[in-house]
């Protein structure tokens, strides 16, 4: 009788709590663009299904156990003059029951868990799109060996085709986190780690480094642009036209700012750390590849929106915006910055 009451009350509690959880987890990627709770990729779905399973059991246990605790707190409240209660020492049957039942619940979690472990560790098939991810302090490098192109901080993927990530680090341990499509995997300097996902919805999604990697760990974000396959192919084709630029070649005719910016890019030393070659890009550069910097949404690994004003600010005072970043303050004047912005804005 008590059990039925408890069960009925609990199921109502569970529903109420579940609704509360869902409400608080209010699901829309507009509100929570980086949420793990709205999976849009197969890997992330596996993780989310497991979360669902564990949350359900956790809520059940929570309601039951906290409920019993709360009940005891009220029911057995001592009053002055109370006689000494019955001096129970234990009950072996009850001990067995409350050892076995949790074990069964855990088994119910373990079975789908083990299955999912092997699923998520499987090697993607040959038609997967391989993307190499290299973590740097504090930006992300993305290479597409299939197309021989390299970019930074913004990863384009085609919807509906499996992506196979092969990952490493240029320096310390970072963690590549794609909450919407996959999950996270650490990257190391001395071994390759892997993750895979298939994007199942278009869109522009943020992610962040998830392993403390030094002073600017908090500003090491990336973006994934999941595109229709044709749009993705168009992007690839365009990137494949971006080789190292001969001087003056792409200069819009008579554009003084562009020409000045181009001269400054070498003169100020930017060229030592940054390459414009998306194709056959050199490896191990200190700074991100800038082949399509003009069209990226963000600057400095998600730190600033890519506007002309922000770009000028960044060029003039990277240390003030992202203290400790490996890009030094080079004493660039306002006028020089404008020229450089014009030059960079044209690299799209």
């Amino acid at each position, binding site marked *: 009788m008590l059990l039925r009451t408890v069960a009925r009350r609990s199921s109502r509690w569970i529903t109420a709590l579940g609704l509360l959880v869902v409400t608080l987890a209010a699901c829309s990627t507009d509100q929570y663009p980086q949420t793990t709770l709205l999976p849009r990729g197969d890997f992330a779905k596996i993780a989310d299904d*497991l979360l669902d399973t564990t949350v359900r059991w956790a809520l059940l246990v929570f309601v039951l156990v906290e409920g019993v605790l709360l009940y005891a707190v009220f029911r057995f409240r001592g009053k002055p003059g109370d006689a000494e209660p019955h001096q129970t020492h234990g009950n072996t049957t009850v001990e067995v029951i409350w050892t076995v039942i949790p074990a069964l619940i855990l088994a119910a979690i373990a079975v789908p868990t083990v299955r999912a472990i092997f699923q998520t560790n499987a090697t993607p098939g040959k038609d997967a799109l391989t993307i190499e991810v290299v973590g740097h302090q504090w930006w992300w490098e993305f290479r597409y060996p299939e197309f021989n192109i390299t970019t930074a901080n913004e990863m384009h993927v085609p919807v509906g085709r499996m992506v196979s990530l092969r990952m490493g680090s240029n320096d310390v341990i970072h963690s590549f986190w794609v909450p919407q499509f996959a999950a996270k995997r650490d990257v190391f300097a001395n071994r390759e780690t892997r993750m895979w996902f298939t994007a199942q919805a278009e869109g522009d999604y943020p992610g962040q480094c998830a392993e403390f990697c030094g002073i600017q760990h908090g500003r090491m974000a990336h973006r994934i642009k999941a595109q229709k396959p044709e749009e993705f192919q168009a992007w690839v084709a365009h990137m494949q036209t971006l080789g190292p630029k001969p001087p003056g070649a792409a200069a819009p005719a008579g554009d003084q700012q562009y020409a000045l910016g181009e001269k400054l890019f070498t003169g100020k030393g930017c060229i030592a750390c940054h390459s414009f070659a998306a194709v056959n890009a050199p490896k191990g550069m200190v700074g991100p590849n800038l082949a399509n910097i003009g069209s990226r949404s963000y600057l400095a690994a998600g730190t600033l929106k890519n506007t002309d004003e922000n770009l000028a600010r960044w060029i003039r005072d990277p240390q003030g915006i992202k203290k400790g970043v490996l890009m030094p303050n080079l004493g660039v004047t306002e006028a020089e910055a404008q020229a450089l912005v014009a030059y960079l804005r044209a690299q799209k």
Partner: protein
Amino acid sequence: MATRVLDQHPAHAAAHGEKTGLWSWVTTVDHKRIGILYGATAFFFFLLGGVEALLLRIQLGSPESTFLSPDTYNQLFTMHGTTMIFLAIMPLSAMFFNYLIPLQIGARDVAFPRLNAFSYWVFLLGGLFLNSSFLFGAAPDQGWFGYANLTSKQYSPGLNVDFWMLGLQILGIASLAAAVNFFVTVLNMRAPGMTLMRMPMFVWMSFITQVLLLLAFPVITVALILLMYDRFFGSNFFVPSGGGDPLLWQHLFWIFGHPEVYILILPAFGIVSEVLPVFSRKPLFGYAAMVFSGVFIAFLGFGVWSHHMFSTGMGPLADTFFALTTMLIAIPTGVKIFNWIGTMWGGSLQYRTPMLFAIGFIAMFIIGGLSGVMHSSPPADLQQTDTYFVVAHFHYVLFGGSIFGLTAGAYYWWPKMFGRLLDERLGKLHFWLMLIGFNLTFFPMHFVGLHGMPRRVYTYPEGLGFDLMNQIETAGSFVLTVAFLVFLYNIFKTSRQPRNAPADPWNGATLEWSIPSPPPEFNFAEIPTVHGRDALWEMKRQRGGQLPEPIRASGAGIHMPNPSYWPLVTAVGVLAVFVSLMVIGHTGVLGVAAAIALLFVGVYMWAYEPAG
């Protein structure tokens, strides 16, 4: 070991029993005084860690805040974690080990009073060393678990990691010394009739904790040595370019690190297991189950470490193994929770402050345990790890668990230690403020973590939906601040009351309540003989509720150990060795040799201290 016989003359005895003055504290080998030293020092560091947390919360209270620079933030979050774990929770537990273990087993002191003092001084000096880093603007900033290869000389060229590495080494020595001491004390110094299965549960949990300390600390000692060799002498244990493996650090660290979290929680388990029966007026439910679940947790605790490494790509077999062991360890943990509830069930519950904190502990620990189970599934954990979800988890078990438990112990044993009862009304206010503040601060972290906020980030942008939850968390941290101010006020107010607490204000079940509050230097005028569990309840039952025999005021004829300053000298020697390693660039091998010489002098004089 040098001892003295307590004086025959009552007047002298009273005077000698309570030595005052700084020197008496500096040379004390009395476990009760050492306990108080541990407690006061740990509480100070706890408040320091709390201030660090408050600063972090202010920074995170709004997006893109510039209240703290990134390097300051990183130092603060590292020191907050390191301080809370090594300088607050562990030594607060040590306060209770020190004060209570001899009293609860019916002994006059610990097995090695000077070793006991030594461990306190090393702890104090280690804590000061670690925090002196702030003076150099080089507080540790690599996170409390210091992952390689961020900690290599190349990526952390400053003194920050050195302070952390050497500071932890010093603290490890304190823990090991204390662990040897308490292990022997519990095994060897129990009153006649007190078999292992008649010991108070606090003593059992503390005993298991000592075993964990003895077996876990050597592992981090080696890890820190290897890191030191990499940083100071150019080896490549954790440096990839030299063939080393950063993952090796993680394995070594977590083989220590996971048992460490059981070191942090088991004493609180023990405290709660003392408080609940007394304030339920019935014995602990399932004593044997509680003992065996504690032993099983400790044993299995050495088999789960890579659940901290699920995102490193260890492969499906390793992931599966550690997932299963982690799930397994939830079972004995659950058994404990159920036995605590079973203790309350059918009792006559007395809602005094210690009981409120004990019940709060259970309620909060259940939540922390459940989020732990959620982490145990690697594919799900790959979304949760390194986010605020795990920050929520470990704060529920360490704050909601350990701190609530330790606070219950503080209110419970305050009268025994200081002869005064803490104010009940202020205590209740403290409890409710702490419960509300704690949940406001940490519950939203479950959500903000699942919504994509990583941990250890010094700021976050607008537009990710983190703002409101962070605001709530920051507000909660201010409520917590008020809670601690109330506690401080309670302590201050109580200190001005007369010292007239009775020996047994709570109708306790264990032997410490049979002697005066506070106890005389010799603890027990006569060592009691024990006939069962809950020894004091048993004795009172046989005397119609009265405490056994009137307590003698004089300890005439009792041998007590002499005070000594060699433990302090030796502790200074230990500090000197590590400081000399830190400055080896300036003082060279000669400096290290001099420090070692000081250490040897301390040890030698200690060993050969004349008797009587």
